[in-house]
């Protein structure tokens, strides 16, 4: 349409200049809004911009009628020109009619607008008049209203004033009543008085420049001062329970008494009270004996559980309460409270410790455990206030437990010694003939069983300390160190060690120097006991202990079982050796005396075996029985069992090889020596006092060796006559007859007796041996 219009315009332009001018006027006004339209159709603009300005385009902006005309004229044939002209004429007409239509429309609108404006002009004129009326009315209203309010104002002010006065008067009334109320309450309800005073105080202070107020203030001050005074007196003098004390101090604080001073007062008052509690506890303890434990204090009136109970409910409870109040009253600053509480707690601990020390006997451990448990539990609340005391308390409990374990150890030791005493008594008791006393195995079994039983019982008691329901058992001490250091090492290992030591003591100790020596049977018994310990009992005890008190992995090192076993074995060995020595020495002493006291030169021809030899054989037989009760038989070196009937080889001409052969012909003593020495080169050296093995044969061999060697040495110290030699011969044969069966190797007996015989022959002035048959005869008869 636009193109048509433009073309129209151009057409008109091309059509004729007058039209063009008229067109430009109308076209200008019409075309202006068309500009935005054209701009809106951007692409055509763009096309226009792209294409070079074409002066021949009738709708283009650069249309040049001259160029267009020239171009049309030069290019188009006539027909076309005509057709063109007709087309242009049509377009121009269409455009003209459109323009006319538009003009009409616009004109109509303009007219109706003019009508409207005119009408409005008329209406406004009406309104203006009404507005003026309104303004006048309003002015009248405001004037009268002002008059009314002016008239009412005065009354209103007076009313308000009166209300104010009324309130003031009421307050004054209250103030005036303050001293009275204070006075009334100060006696009975100081707290209420305080509240009252607190309310009045600020006002009074504010108006104190007024004499009447001052009087009131002074009066109430005086009352309050009096009240404070009374409270203080009460604080100082009376015995208040912690609640009253707290109230009292709280009121004093409200009375603006200095907090510093009050906290001191509070603490001292609390101190007095706690001291009283402590004193009550202390009163139950016997007076400390400065001279030591000269007299055994009478048993405490109440048991430990009771004591701890009272101590914790009275003292610990009060202390907790007071400490709580202190915090509430004086804030969290506990610089003063802590040392105070620590001191008191320390005294309490000390008291408890003294009480614990009174638990001398073994008493009831469960009671002690319960007491300690309660103590520990109750203390926990206190410890929240007083963290510093935790260590002290734990130490106290641990020490008490340790103490108890030590006491058990001592009790065990006493028990063992008691058992030993019983055994000694049983051994020493004179036995009516024909009636055997309890045998050694029975005694041993009784001893071992009772000791083991006691140990088990003790372990069971001690286990109470680590029971699950006991609060302090969860302390690290009781989990680790207590089990290992106190129980395993301090109790079990220490006991076993002590047992070994004690047993050894019988062998090492006083035997020689004065003190009554242990009976040999006891040595034997203890040797067996130690051996049994080494074999089984120690490992059993240790296993039991480790089960009941499981050791911590990272705990302190423990004594290994084998070390203990070695100790026990050493003790057993020492005891058995000692037994052999003691018994050997007893027999040897008999032999020595018999040889030393006899006149070997002037003796008569032997008719009998000397009584002492029979005695020796009897004793050794008895020893054999004794040892046989406790120790195994042992290995005997196999040899002809028939040796009792064998000839006493020294005097027989035909002899087994390997025997020493003294010759009694008065010829060459040199030969004798030579022979003797050669023989000795091939025989084993005999150690007389040598360790023995744990069996009967070895023990007996040891004793026989000691005896015979003694006989040998003693004979060598004497000078014998002919009959003396013969007597030795008889004695030797007798011993040979009866002793060989006891020894592990009868050659030992044989060899030693041969040496005795040889030495006797050497020491004889007239060595004429007795006929062997006669010797045998005498021995068989004897």
């Amino acid at each position, binding site marked *: 349409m636009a193109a048509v219009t433009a073309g129209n315009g151009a057409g008109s332009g091309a059509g004729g200049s007058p039209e063009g001018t008229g067109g430009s006027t109308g076209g200008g006004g019409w075309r202006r809004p068309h500009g935005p339209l054209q701009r809106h159709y951007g692409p055509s603009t763009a096309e226009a911009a792209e294409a070079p300005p074409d002066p021949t385009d009738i709708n283009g902006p650069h249309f040049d009628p001259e160029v267009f005309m020239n171009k049309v004229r030069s290019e188009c044939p006539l027909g076309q020109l005509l057709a063109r002209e007709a087309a242009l004429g049509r377009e121009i007409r269409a455009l003209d009619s459109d323009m006319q239509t538009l003009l009409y429309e616009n004109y109509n609108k303009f007219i109706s607008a003019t009508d409207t404006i005119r009408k409005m002009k008329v209406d406004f004129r009406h309104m203006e008049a009404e507005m003026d009326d309104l303004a006048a009315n309003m002015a009248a209203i405001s004037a009268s209203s002002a008059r009314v309010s002016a008239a009412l104002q005065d009354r209103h002010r007076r009313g308000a004033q009166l209300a104010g006065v009324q309130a003031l008067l009421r307050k004054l009334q209250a103030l005036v009543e303050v001293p009275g109320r204070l006075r009334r309450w100060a006696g009975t309800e100081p707290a209420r008085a305080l509240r009252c005073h607190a309310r009045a105080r600020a006002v009074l202070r504010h108006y104190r420049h007024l004499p009447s107020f001052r009087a009131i203030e002074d009066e109430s001050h005086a009352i309050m001062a009096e009240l404070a005074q009374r409270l203080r007196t009460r604080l100082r003098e009376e015995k208040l329970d912690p609640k009253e004390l707290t109230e009292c101090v709280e009121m004093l604080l409200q009375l603006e008494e200095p907090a510093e001073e009050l906290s001191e007062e509070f603490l001292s008052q609390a101190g007095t009270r706690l001291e009283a509690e402590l004193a009550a506890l202390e009163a139950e303890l016997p007076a400390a004996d400065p001279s030591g434990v000269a007299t055994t204090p009478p048993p405490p009136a109440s048991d430990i559980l009771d004591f701890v109970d009272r101590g914790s409910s009275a003292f610990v409870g009060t202390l907790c309460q007071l400490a709580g109040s202190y915090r509430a009253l004086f804030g969290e600053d506990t610089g003063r409270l802590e040392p105070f509480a620590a001191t008191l707690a320390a005294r309490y601990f000390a008291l408890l410790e003294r009480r614990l020390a009174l638990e001398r006997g073994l008493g009831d451990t469960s009671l002690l455990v319960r007491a300690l448990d309660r103590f520990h539990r109750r203390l926990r609340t206190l410890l929240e206030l007083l963290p510093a005391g935790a260590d002290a308390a734990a130490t106290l409990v641990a020490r008490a437990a340790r103490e108890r374990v030590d006491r058990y150890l001592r009790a065990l030791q006493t028990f063992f010694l008691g058992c030993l005493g019983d055994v000694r008594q049983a051994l020493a008791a004179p036995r009516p003939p024909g009636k055997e006393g309890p045998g050694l195995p029975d005694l041993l079994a009784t001893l071992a069983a009772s000791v083991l039983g006691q140990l088990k019982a003790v372990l069971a008691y001690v286990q109470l300390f680590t029971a699950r329901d006991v609060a302090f058992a969860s302390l690290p001490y009781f989990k680790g160190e207590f089990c290992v250091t106190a129980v395993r090492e301090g109790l079990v290992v220490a006991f076993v060690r002590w047992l070994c030591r004690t047993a050894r003591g019988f062998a090492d100790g006083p*035997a*020689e*120097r*004065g003190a009554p020596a242990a009976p040999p049977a006891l040595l034997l018994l203890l040797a067996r006991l130690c051996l049994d310990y080494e074999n089984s009992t120690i490992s059993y005890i240790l296993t039991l202990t480790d089960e009941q008190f499981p050791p911590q992995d990272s705990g302190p090192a423990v004594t290994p079982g084998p070390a203990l076993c070695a100790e026990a074995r050493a003790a057993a060995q020492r005891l058995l050796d000692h037994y052999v020595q003691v018994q050997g*020495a007893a027999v*040897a*002493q008999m032999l*020595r005396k018999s040889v030393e006291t006899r006149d070997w*030169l*002037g003796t008569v021809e032997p008719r009998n075996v000397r009584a002492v030899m029979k005695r020796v054989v009897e004793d050794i037989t008895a020893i054999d029985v004794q040892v046989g009760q406790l120790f195994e038989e042992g290995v005997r070196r196999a040899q002809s069992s028939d040796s009792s009937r064998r000839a006493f080889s020294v005097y027989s001409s035909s002899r087994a090889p390997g025997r020493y052969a003294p010759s009694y012909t*008065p010829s060459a*003593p*040199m030969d004798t*020596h030579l022979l*003797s*020495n050669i023989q*000795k*080169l091939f025989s084993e*050296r005999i*150690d*007389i*006092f*040598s360790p023995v093995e744990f069996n009967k044969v070895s023990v007996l061999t040891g004793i026989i060796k000691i005896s015979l*060697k003694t006989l040998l*040495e003693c004979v*060598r110290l004497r*000078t014998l*006559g002919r009959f003396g030699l013969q007597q030795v011969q008889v004695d030797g044969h007798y011993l040979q007859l009866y002793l060989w069966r006891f020894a592990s190797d009868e050659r030992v007996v044989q060899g030693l007796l041969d040496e005795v015989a040889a030495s006797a022959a*050497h*020491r*004889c*002035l007239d060595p004429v041996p007795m006929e062997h048959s006669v010797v045998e005869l005498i021995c068989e008869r004897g």
Partner: protein
Amino acid sequence: MEDDAPVIYGLEFQARALTPQTAETDAIRFLVGTQSLRYDNQIHIIDFDDENNIINKNVLLHQVGEIWHISTSPADKGVLATCYNKTSDTKVMTCAAVWRMPKELESGSHESPDDSSSNTQTLELLCHLDNTAHGNMACVMWEPMGDGKKIISLADNNILLWDLQESSAKAVLSSSAALEGKGQLKFTSGRWSPHHNCTQIATANDTTVRGWDTRSMRQIYCIENAHGQLVRDLDFNPNKQYYLASCGDDCKVKFWDTRNVTDPVKTLEEHSHWVWNVRYNHSHDQLILTGSSDSRVILSNMVSISSEPFGHMVDDDELSDQEDQHQEEKIKEPLQDSVIATYEEHEDSVYAVEWSSADPWLFASLSYDGRLVINRVPRALKYHILL
């Protein structure tokens, strides 16, 4: 060990008595007395040539009886005393006499052994110690470091102090003391202390050790139950005046401080039978020699109770630098009591051990079968002590 092997000498007879020649300080010489009931007894003078390891012997006849104890004068090399058994058919009596050996034997002789055995010489009797009133003589002690004029003999329960007069031709009993008590008391042995101006002796009877003052002849101390059984021998520490060693039938050797007799200072339990003899080394009192009827001789080093508990004090300068350093370190490490050596050359009970009076590193031991063994302290220990 490049230690010299022990030297062994055999006697024909059994023997118990052994002594060094106390007055001799140059040559190593021991005297051994034999025991034979049926032959003439002898005293063997054993000379030991240390350099050549050779033994020379001279034999003296001792015809009066078998010798139980022998001791030599500290002043005169030729004088000795013996306790011997005089036997009759029904009675044995132990007597004591002082003898003089032939002059040429005093300092040893270099005759060939064959000769000496063929023509044995006899002792010259100087005097008898008359004991008819006192009982059997157990031993004779010379006053140590004296002039050889005072001797003490123990006879049964009597202590007899003799003065030898007229060049030992006469023995005068100057004082005596008797031990009274229950039963038959009998001295087994005794020693004369070299300390306190030689005014103390110690005796042993049964299990008791007693000290006596020779001036007053009174008992000055008494160790009751010194040993569990019989006490066999005693010896004084030559360098520490209150120290005494004892040994006995309980197989133990005990060391005592005579000022405190309730407990021994130290006890050794190394032997397996009775200990018959204990001897301190004359110069180095840590060296203790013991002989026992278990046929062993044990040399112990009792440093801790010796007069040189920290070893020989030597300034470092005295040690030349070339001296091996480790030796020096050895000295400084703490010394401990120990058994140095056990000598097992004997086959029979050893009843006597003695240090040589001339060489402090050499000792002899005698067993009943007549075997005399001469041994030396191990060289390493010797240097250890000396350096």
